[in-house]
């Protein structure tokens, strides 16, 4: 009963914490809310007119929405990048920031589910896909698998984050027997969400571009490049704007791991390119359309090369220790690899998989204005979720926000004394 009361007080206090911030906080949240409003407006149009106001058609029946979904599953999976070294190798500096990775995963999953919801033609029938309520075609359909693993992964991360923060709030030590197994479980879960998402495409024999055995490994390798890139930048922002203690050592360690995954990612891409071009079967048309255009249709060509070149440049910046340990080149590398993977998943995976279509027809797809606005709205929602979680979590992680302080501190949201050191909240 006591902990139940604590829990409701925790929720209330957190809510109060979210409502108060400085100018920049309000401006940022206001900006995100404005974007969300644009997205809602665009989506309302889509709901009434139908997906015809997207540029998707029967020939290219999935597009920008599903591309973004795929990319964000990768971001969600990349939380593992921090969890593995922290828990397997017991490496202290990374442990403190694992919770951030988990919050990133939650935000990414919120966006994933958003992109799936806006892509389906009958969102009013979403209950059909809820296990036990609707009629899930499991285990035959990979989409059914994806629904299950994505939601489980979301639940798992949400629980671990909330539990750890709640323990810090009540200044009690978390129960290791609860947290450790869950965190260890999140490792195979992270691998599984991206693997299942890859299999979604991989298992379709009708689309030779996707029907490649290294699709799932490529998904994982690229996710382990882009996910940590977001985190590296975030960690730097956080240690500037808050008193959260994040060592250079932790950041450089992540960067080093990223150099390996980027090299591996490029290698897998090269393996795919070699197989396609050397064997040169009629299945070559898809990768030809992507990199060189087909019969004068060249929409994807600039995207394809931008992805390859940014990926290569980022790899070099991360490979060379001097540029890896220079903040400017490190951050540039982060932006480049993020762009590379985003372009590859957003434009270079779904669209060439479907172009030319199964009867050889070429329909040149590019996202419509509505699709862009709806996507912006979903990204803003994800950023808002992340911002709010950070807003609540940072003071808790710093030990500034505890039940005791809240009771004594009156209505002022942030305690005035800042003279205690950061404390660890993750196991």
């Amino acid at each position, binding site marked *: 009963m006591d902990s139940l009361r604590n829990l409701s007080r925790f929720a209330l206090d957190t809510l109060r914490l979210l409502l108060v911030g400085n100018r920049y906080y309000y401006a940022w949240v206001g900006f995100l809310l404005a974007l969300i409003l644009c997205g809602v407006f665009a989506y*309302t149009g889509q*709901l009434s*007119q*139908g*997906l*015809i106001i*997207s540029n*998707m*058609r*029967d*020939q290219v*029946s*999935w597009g920008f929405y599903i591309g973004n979904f795929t990319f964000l599953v990768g971001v969600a999976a990349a939380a593992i990048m921090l969890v593995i070294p922290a828990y397997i190798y017991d490496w202290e500096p990374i442990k403190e920031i694992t919770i951030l990775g988990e919050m990133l995963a939650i935000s990414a999953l919120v966006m994933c589910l958003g992109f*799936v919801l806006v*892509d*389906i*033609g*009958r*969102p*009013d*029938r*979403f*209950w*059909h*896909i*809820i296990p*036990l*309520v*609707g*009629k*899930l*075609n499991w285990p*035959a*359909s*990979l*989409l*059914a698998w994806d*629904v299950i693993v994505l939601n489980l992964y979301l639940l798992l991360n949400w629980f671990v984050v909330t539990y750890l923060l709640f323990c810090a709030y009540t200044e009690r030590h978390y129960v290791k027997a609860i947290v450790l197994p869950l965190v260890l479980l999140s490792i195979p879960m992270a691998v599984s969400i991206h693997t299942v998402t890859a299999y*979604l*495409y991989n*298992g*379709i*024999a*009708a*689309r030779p571009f996707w029907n490649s055995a290294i699709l799932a490994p490529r998904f994982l390798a690229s996710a382990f490049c882009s996910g940590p890139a977001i985190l590296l930048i975030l960690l730097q922002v956080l240690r500037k704007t808050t008193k959260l203690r994040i060592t250079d050592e932790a950041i450089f360690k992540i960067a080093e791991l990223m150099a390996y995954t980027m090299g591996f990612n490029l290698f897998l891409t090269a393996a795919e390119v070699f197989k396609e071009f050397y064997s040169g079967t*009629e299945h070559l*048309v898809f990768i030809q359309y992507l990199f060189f255009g087909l019969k004068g249709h060249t929409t994807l060509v600039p995207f394809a090369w931008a992805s390859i070149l940014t990926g290569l440049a980022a790899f070099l910046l991360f490979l060379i220790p001097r540029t890896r340990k220079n903040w400017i080149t490190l951050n540039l590398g982060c932006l480049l690899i993020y762009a590379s993977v985003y372009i590859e998943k957003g434009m270079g995976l779904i669209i060439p*998989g*479907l172009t*030319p*279509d*199964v*009867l*050889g*027809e070429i329909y040149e797809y590019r996202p419509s204005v509505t699709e862009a606005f709806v996507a912006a709205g979903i990204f803003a929602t994800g950023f808002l979720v992340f911002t709010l979680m950070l807003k609540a979590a940072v003071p808790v992680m710093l030990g500034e926000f505890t039940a005791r302080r809240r009771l004594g501190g009156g209505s002022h949201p942030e305690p005035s004394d800042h003279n205690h050191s950061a404390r660890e909240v993750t196991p």
Partner: protein
Amino acid sequence: MNASHPGPCSGSCPGGEGTPGRREFLAAAVAGMAGALAGCGKLSMEEFLQRNFRELAKDEIQKILLRLEKEYRAKFGKPVRVGIEEPMQGVVFGYALDLSRCIGCRRCVHACVRENNQSRDPQIQWIRVMEMEKELGVDVQHANHYYDPAVVPREGHFYMPVQCHQCRRAPCVKVCPVGATWQEPDGITVVDYNWCIGCRYCMAACPYGARHFNWGEPQLPAAELNTETHYLGNRPRPQGVVEKCTFCIQRTRKGLYPACAEICPTGSRKFGNLMDPKSEIRYVLENKRVFLFKEDLNTKPKFYYFYGV
């Protein structure tokens, strides 16, 4: 449910009556949320809560048919019959198309649209005829989908109509996340337009481009409406769901030929019961040079191509 015989025809459906308590409660719970979220004013609670066709009891189906007939009557201003003719015992439908006879006139395409109530705007067609060069053989990368000469056939070309292949190992059925599409005992793959969520995974999975999505609200002039319909076939479709060729289920289950086979002026289209050794389709399969389109995908189609002469 008995998976091998999934029609409503199997009499009372076990589970259909027994377990709806929890399901209906949960469904009703999400109903309110969804209604508020989607703002679907047009959607009745009855329609929203309707379960998968294969889980419905006979009396529930009857109620739904009446509701649909009322709805269509209001929309088109004339009576529409929505039937659920069941598969015939000992019948598995097959189709064979004679590539040496087809002249590419596309009469089949338009007869299909008229018979099956496809949307006229945006235009949906279940049959796609490809013009191919004789020298290249069956090669979709060089096919012309939008050929428009004054007279067909054009010199040096042959024509290959493609429609649903009614695969025995149908990738579309396998991938559907909600079981909204399935193969009937007579071999026809159908869609429950009231259960499909419009995710379009089946469209990505189909190797024959046979599945079509209602991207916008389907426009169908009342004057052109075919009022003889089947629940799993040619009844008017809503926006946001997938549809496909059903071998004219509303006709063939009554012993008629599909509209495309009936109209073909060259006799290129052969349709019949694969289980009947004396049928024309069996004669074609046993005596002509037959090939399967994309046989490497192992989808085991019941739609065959052959060279008659």
